């Protein structure tokens, strides 16, 4: 509030409330937002794992085997599981953001949100299918 407010000088005391540190626990939509922000930590976690994997790959077959065994650590399996859920959540919220940020018009009419988000999901599905195909072919 700027001190310029005209009637402030003679005005009775205003009451202000501070936002509590736990404001995000008050409502499911706020909590969802915080979880979405937290999901970026797990995205970073996956990047670190990927970098370690590349490092192990460069170290030769033995180093890679050691890395694979390290990954089998129950703690890491649990962390990976939680991380997967968060990254999934991250992807879904990101794709759902697309129709908010982009207004696509076709013949003067705004495309419904579902149709703007759909290509993202389709691309996701296609890339996932390709990866599954490559993995199964190797096996």
């Amino acid at each position: 509030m700027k001190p310029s407010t005209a009637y402030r000088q003679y005005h009775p005391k205003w009451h202000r409330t501070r936002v509590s540190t736990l404001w995000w626990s008050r409502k499911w939509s706020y909590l969802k937002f915080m979880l979405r922000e937290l999901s970026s930590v797990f995205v970073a976690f996956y990047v670190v794992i990927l970098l370690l994997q590349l490092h192990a790959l460069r170290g030769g077959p033995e180093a890679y085997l050691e890395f694979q065994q390290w990954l089998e650590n129950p703690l890491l399996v649990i962390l990976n599981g939680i991380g997967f859920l968060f990254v999934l959540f991250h992807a879904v919220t990101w794709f759902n953001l697309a129709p908010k940020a982009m207004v696509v018009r076709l013949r003067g009419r705004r495309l419904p949100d579902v149709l703007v988000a759909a290509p993202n999901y389709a691309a996701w599905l296609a890339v996932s299918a390709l990866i599954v195909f490559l993995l199964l072919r190797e096996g």
Partner: protein
Amino acid sequence: MAETITIEVARYRPEQEGEPTFQSYEVPFSKDWVVLDALNYIKDHLDGSLSFRWSCRMGVCGSCGMTVNGEPKLTCATFLSHYSPGPIRVEPLQNFPVVRDLVIEMTDFLEKLQSVKPWIVRKDDPAPAEGEFLQTPEELDEFKQFSMCINCMICYAACPVYGLDPQFIGPAAIALAQRYNLDSRDQGEQERLDVLSQHEGIWGCTFVGECTEVCPKNVDPAGAIQQYKLAATKDWFKSFLMPWSKP
């Protein structure tokens, strides 16, 4: 006796108390009554000292925004029956200083609104005698949704970013800036961008999205802000890659 419902109203009388308190009133319950009807009943029949803002009673003026059972609502469009059997807790809008009872101080919002120039800005400014600016229905459609804003500040009450950082220019002001940017008759986009590209402008928004959820007029301020971010980013890239091109 006719059915009644309890309304717990936040009272703040700065001349007699330092902290807000709650006062309960029993009002008649009617299925076609809204929270504002109950407040007016209290004012007329039970306690004339209760202060609150209202005007049109039909979701147009944007005066009667309050917190009803923890949610920011237009009290003229919030039915008692929705909260039956009660009690219903009515408090002032969150994130604003309280002047008295349910009346909040809104100068901050009005100054922010003014800073984004929510009117048609023309560089040439032709005389009215030269005729009106024409617009096609398609051009109207581009911004119509954002023009439905009634400045009720419910989105500000729902926005945790505004609550934590009062410098943030806020959802409605940005949605209204976008309303004029998208208007084919307007030429003030660059002037607004100077205000909105600052940190307290669009970049302060972390996209909680609650402004859009609570908006009683389906304006979608969250959408407006994200669209603005995209446009500002494109603008920046263009000026970075092609510094000779004028915005």
